[in-house]
């Protein structure tokens, strides 16, 4: 698999990041290196092995349906808000309403 410049730009766009041409070229190389390294895994025969979705062999980590006491006060909830108004997080208007 080969990463193209298009993939780099698409990935940057999805992450809402802007890069200069030099930076993009650097990423192109870096991303290809990463994928080439991962290609090593293809040397193994995984024909009859289930895909791993989790490295830890644990199942059914479940909790009971109970309301707890760790709910924060509104003051604490809004502590990291860039701006607030009437108890809400204030953000720029989203066009897609």
């Amino acid at each position: 698999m080969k990463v193209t410049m298009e993939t780099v730009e698409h990935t940057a766009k999805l992450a809402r990041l802007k890069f200069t041409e030099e930076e993009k070229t650097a990423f192109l190389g870096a991303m290809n290196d990463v994928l080439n390294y991962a290609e090593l895994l293809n040397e193994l025969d995984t024909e009859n092995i289930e895909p791993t979705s989790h490295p830890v062999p644990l199942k059914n980590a479940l909790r009971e349906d109970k309301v707890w006491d760790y709910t924060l006060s509104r003051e604490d909830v809004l502590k990291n808000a860039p701006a607030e108004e009437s108890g809400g997080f204030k953000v720029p208007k989203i066009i897609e309403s």
Partner: protein
Amino acid sequence: MRYETVIGLEVHVELATASKIFCGCSTKFGQEINTQCCPICLGMPGVLPKLNKKVVDYALKAALALNCKINQETKFDRKNYFYPDLPKAYQISQYDKPIGEHGYIDITVDGEVRRIGITRIHMEEDAGKLLHESDPTSSLIDLNRTGVPLIEIVSEPDLRSPEEAREYLMQLRNILKYIDVSDVKMEEGSLRCDANISLRPYGQETFGTKTELKNLNSFKWIAKGIEHEMARQKLLLDSGEKVTQETRRFDVNTQKTVLMRSKEEAHDYRYFPDPDLVTVEISDDWIKEAKASMPELPEKKKIRFMETYQLPEYDAGIITGEKELAQFFEDTAKEFRGEAKVISNWVMGDLMRLLNSENKEISDCAVTAKDMASMLNLIEDGTISGKIAKTVFEEMFLTGKEPKTIIAEKGLVQISDVSELEKIIDEVIGKDIKSVRDFQNGNKKALGFFMGQVMRQSGGKANPKVVNELLAKKLNAFEIKE
């Protein structure tokens, strides 16, 4: 050209758990904004989500009720996108191993049963709410809803008309309410519906280009919204233009569908397994347990009601639409000596009319099934007339009193005593010789006229059957003195 409409629905349902899906914050609706959040549902770095067992219980029940095949190894994935109502910048959802797949429900439209496929049902967390009351350049966010458990139910593109879409949604709602996994209140957002709509010329196999219609969030608007989108697409196709794949929403005020986003900006969600959550294994025992807790479902109950109580399909459909209403009907039928159809007439007529006008559910209705049955028995044995019964029933509904008490208090017992009735009839006949002549000359309407007079004179209490016999006899025998 004539087109066939192809519709698939995506329905989001909030599960009625006490706490959120991955943390212990309350899911209670209508609380002060941003007061039901913790570091987990706020998406703070370093926190660990832990799955609420009841969410799996409920989703499993729903999947079984919708005849799905259960994936006994099911897992959660991250769906990545940026939106201010999603603090983690990803939603925990299920991608390639949803809890249920390949299900169906049967719906009846115009007397025809249609099987609608369910592609999948999966568990996920709800996002926060955007409030637009601030100034025009900004929005406010309430994160109380973030992390409330949802199931998403995706149908196959098997629906062919707005009516079918509405019926499917209604049936789905009834089932989910029956199995007690959600309060399915559309007005509170616990049931939300999006529709994928496309048109194709009749006979064509391949689907046309679809648009996604968002936020069809009331039964009143679902059919309307789809109709408008169908008309818009037809206009495009008829004039040789193309439908573009895009997301639209139905604007209730303008009665039009408006563009939200087009395909070019479509999301690339980059799903991957959530490393913070482990696989959920649903054992055979767990499935058995879920099945055991399942009540008889609406469609099955409907067929049983048609067979056991000889109800027409329409009546059976309405009465079994709600579990509590069906129970009320059955409890009444146990004590009532007449035909069950009489009960369904009363339930669908006076009872539902009064419930609707008072905006009440059957569960908070003052009339018990036992009282309902004893009132109907009083009509059956002639103690009260059907007309008087309406008054009695209204009083029962308002006060919760027993029918016998109301009848005694208001003196509403039907008059069946011949001599008493004869007195009234003589009086009425004597007042209108012209109508007596009409009757004797063969005008049958005159009998109805006198009947009405007798009923009025008796304050509605005269036994119509007895009056009918007596009247005919008296009228025939009456000698008009010129």
